[in-house]
């Protein structure tokens, strides 16, 4: 229980602007980008270790999820017809600029790899593109942690250590889920292990975030939006789904049906996590106490 924060404000109004990023676009993109990223790395390794069905699943998932995610990003712009302005500069101080370039690479590589895998044309080039996507993939899945953290929103900014790890875990689980759903049991072993590892990391990072473990200033207060309201409910639902999915992933070595159900549960868990992060940011920006209390204390101590 967080003690009632004593603070002054301008008629209780927020200091920060509520993020314009909204559902389902932003959390949908976070999920799809993560899925694409983990799937492209999975595909490259499946290909290298002689698992053609898993490789095909990974290649197609990576390309489809990347394209759909980019579509959501464009749709969220105030001026979607100007989306190409994202690529008129490369700006290291802007995680969105860096991310746009990473995503452009990921999109090109995964499309080429998937097209080659499906049509059988230019297998050498397809394999090279797939290898490149295995490198851009993990970046696409985790740069979004910086994207959100590089804002003034306390619940996002202060969580700059947690968010990339949360997204890495969630993406790993999502990629594993896709592998379990679309690949026969015999080849899906790595997907099951990805699902388990990812679920573990996702649960650990989300749990730390909820309790404020590892947050520096006023951990309980800053983490409050992750425990309460819509974000809190979604994070708890996500945890239940992820735990169920992890258990299912263990059973999936014996049953294909269990693999499909586990995959769906993990996907649901990953989506809940992403929506929770968005809504926690909204609540954090809209509550003046989250901005004022830690800053006031800094002033008093200084």
């Amino acid at each position, binding site marked *: 229980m967080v003690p009632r924060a004593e*603070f002054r404000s301008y008629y209780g109004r927020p200091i920060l602007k509520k993020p314009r990023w909204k559902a389902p676009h932003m959390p949908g993109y976070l999920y799809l980008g993560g899925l694409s990223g983990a799937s492209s790395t999975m595909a490259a390794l499946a290909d290298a270790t002689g698992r053609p069905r898993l490789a095909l699943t990974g290649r197609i998932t990576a390309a489809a999820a990347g394209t759909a995610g980019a579509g959501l990003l464009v749709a969220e712009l105030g001026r979607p017809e100007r989306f190409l302005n994202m690529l008129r500069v490369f700006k290291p101080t802007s995680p969105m*600029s860096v991310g746009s370039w990473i995503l452009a690479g990921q999109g090109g590589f995964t499309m080429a790899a998937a097209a080659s895998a499906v049509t059988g044309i230019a297998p050498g080039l397809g394999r090279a593109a797939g290898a490149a996507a295995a490198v851009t993939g993990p970046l696409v899945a985790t740069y979004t942690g*910086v994207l959100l953290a590089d804002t003034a929103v306390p619940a996002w900014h202060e969580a700059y250590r947690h968010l*990339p790890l949360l997204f890495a875990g969630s993406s790993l689980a999502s990629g594993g889920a896709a592998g379990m759903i679309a690949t026969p049991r015999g080849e899906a072993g790595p997907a099951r292990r990805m699902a388990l590892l990812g679920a573990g990391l996702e649960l650990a990072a989300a749990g730390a975030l909820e309790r404020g473990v590892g947050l520096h200033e006023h951990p309980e207060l800053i983490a409050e939006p992750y425990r309460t309201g819509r974000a809190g409910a979604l994070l708890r639902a996500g945890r239940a789904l992820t735990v169920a999915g992890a258990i299912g992933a263990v059973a999936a070595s014996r049953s294909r049906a269990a693999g499909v159900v586990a995959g769906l549960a993990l996907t649901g868990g990953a989506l809940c996590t992403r929506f929770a992060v968005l809504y926690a940011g909204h609540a954090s920006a809209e509550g003046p106490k989250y901005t004022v209390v830690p800053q006031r204390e800094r002033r008093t101590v200084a």
Partner: protein
Amino acid sequence: MSNSLYGPLPDVAEDAGYTDAPERRGFFTDTSVCIGCKACEVACKEWNAVPDDGFALTGMSYDNTGALGASTWRHVAFVEQTRPRQVGDGSDTRWLMASDVCKHCTHAACLDVCPTGALIRTEFATVVVQSDVCNGCAYCVSACPYGVIDRREDDGRAWKCTLCYDRIGDGLEPACAKACPTDSIQYGPLDELRERARTRLDALHEEGVTEARLYGEDDGDGVGGAGAFFLLLDEPEVYGLPPDPVVTTRDLPAMWKWAGGAALALAGGVALSFLGRR
């Protein structure tokens, strides 16, 4: 060209790549003489052709504007306080009025995070949105530690105070400063304004107005000092201003380190999963 993300910056325009830039310009808003007339809000709207921001009544005070936003580039806050007073005419009520505006930070988070280059540093070291470039990604909206810039939903782009870029280039003062009847809003070279503000602060302190303080004038603060700074008569949060804002990109190197680590963890996790035979 240096690439500093944080801390004092002696020459902001030069850091942005200008040579022979004019003196840094800014606003000094002395709220101790603000009468809450809102002429600044009106003048800003008229000169900049800013559309209406709603005709709602807030019901909380004489302030029916509420906050800065995409279509509100000057906002006059109105605070009514009732508290026991030690000195004065026996009244226990005071009104605080303050005209808020974009701070034109030395380290501007909005500018740092803008992915298109729509937000630029001008030769006057002010921060301006090029509306023909902005694609409405809204990153700046979440990055601003003061909650200044916002996206206009009907046209999809981000808007904020330009410090009347089109006027100051011609040697005119910004519309709000021009219209201010009490010189609460003063425009000029930032160094001059800071000197004037310190003189004013000393005078107020001598008169016994001990609660007077400057806000945003310190190069050592979290945004490297603001181009638009204030003299306030109470804590900043009372006016809706953050007490200790920090440019979010200060922590960017640490953020990328953690993201890089997470990317390696993800790649390692996938690799680990392929170690088994089945």
